[in-house]
């Protein structure tokens, strides 16, 4: 009886010693990985070093009647460019490009000449400007229907020719001392879908225990789609330098009443970083894991 105690004590001591050794080893070796914050610099997609000024002219906008997508987009992009780019933002009246495109179409249709008013043949432009798609004066002269109300992407298509009108944009460039011109199209349309959604449900079983069960339910959801196309035009030549399209959508429960304007800003928040990275270098913050 008396001999058992020392054995127990010695085995406990051995265990304690082993634990202490393991702890010491772990401390001595230290962790095998370290989280570290990093900032990745992203070079701009477009070389805008030749410009000191930027004119966000206006957009061919359509879709929801709840907001003026042209005005909101111009205001938002101007304020973003003021704070997050080196370019000086020109404060000018927002252009109503739908009206301008329709005027150009009327003028072109009313003339016998192959080229529309104020549109010289492409060959008279600057030699170094790349030929823009659809810049053929004959194509511009063809009277094509321009829908006064833009409801979907198809309605926007006929307006695309406006951005290829090199002479028009050159004239605008001269008016504002050859800036970089930002224009394009914006479609902001209501959207709703009915479909299956996986939802977690708290259920109680026969023994009174709570369990979370995933179930598929059909729900109606409403929201908006925002599909802008940004066109960057060289104000010195009127030629398109670069363009990019985006598409973002957001859905809410059908019962939720979210104002169109707040949805618009929520969607633009996702798009603006990409827009800015076209013109200026951005630093993207993140975290990585260093390994030993």
């Amino acid at each position, binding site marked *: 009886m008396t001999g058992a105690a020392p054995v127990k004590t010695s085995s406990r001591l051995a265990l304690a010693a082993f634990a202490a050794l393991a702890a010491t080893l772990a401390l001595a070796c230290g962790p095998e990985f370290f989280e*570290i914050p990093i900032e*990745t610099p992203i070079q701009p*997609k477009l070389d805008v070093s030749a410009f000191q000024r930027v004119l966000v002219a206006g957009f061919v906008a359509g879709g929801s009647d709840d907001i003026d997508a042209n005005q909101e987009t111009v205001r938002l992009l101007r304020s973003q460019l003021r704070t997050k780019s080196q370019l000086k933002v020109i404060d000018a009246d927002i252009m109503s490009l739908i009206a301008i495109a329709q005027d150009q179409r009327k003028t072109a249709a009313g003339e016998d000449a192959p080229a529309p008013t104020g549109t010289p043949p492409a060959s008279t432009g600057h030699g170094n400007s790349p030929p823009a798609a659809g810049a053929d004066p004959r194509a511009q002269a063809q009277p094509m229907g321009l829908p006064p109300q833009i409801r979907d992407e198809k309605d926007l298509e006929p307006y695309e020719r406006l951005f290829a009108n090199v002479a028009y944009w050159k004239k605008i460039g001269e008016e504002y001392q050859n800036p970089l011109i930002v224009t394009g199209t914006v479609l902001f349309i209501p959207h709703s879908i009915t479909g299956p959604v996986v939802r977690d449900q708290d259920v109680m079983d026969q023994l009174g225990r709570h369990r979370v069960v995933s179930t598929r339910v059909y729900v109606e959801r409403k929201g908006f789609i925002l599909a802008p196309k940004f066109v960057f035009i060289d104000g010195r030549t009127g030629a398109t330098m670069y363009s*990019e*399209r985006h598409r973002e959508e957001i859905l809410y429960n059908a019962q939720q009443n979210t104002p169109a304007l707040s949805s618009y800003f929520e969607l633009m928040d996702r798009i603006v970083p990409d827009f800015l990275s076209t013109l200026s270098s951005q630093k993207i913050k993140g975290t*990585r*894991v*260093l*390994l*030993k």
Partner: protein
Amino acid sequence: MAHALLFFWYSGRDPFMTVRLATLFALVASVAASPAAADARSDAKALVDFGISVAQKGLWREAIYRWEKAVETDPTYAAAYNDLAIAYEHEGQLVKARKAYEKALELEPNNSQIQQNFDLFKEINDRSSTGKDK
């Protein structure tokens, strides 16, 4: 060399001896080689550790120098390539970063931390080419 000569001298005499000597020769060769590999790894590990300590102080160029040395010293050290990739990413050298991540994953394809770092890198890197029309 001496081992090899001994091996060939004995091998003609006794077949059992040949097998024994071959085994012995292989053992000696592997034991002789392993300290060199272990030395390379421990040297590279010291460089990686130092690189981590300077990177944590924001001295990324110094960290790059150390980690480049580490991968030179031990080209099979996945962690060194991973750390080097992160430093290149921080310095905006995205092409080099991608190559280093790919090398790290080639060496340790199942390392989830390297994979996660690479996925985050790709997400950022691919932004520069999204939505382009021309």
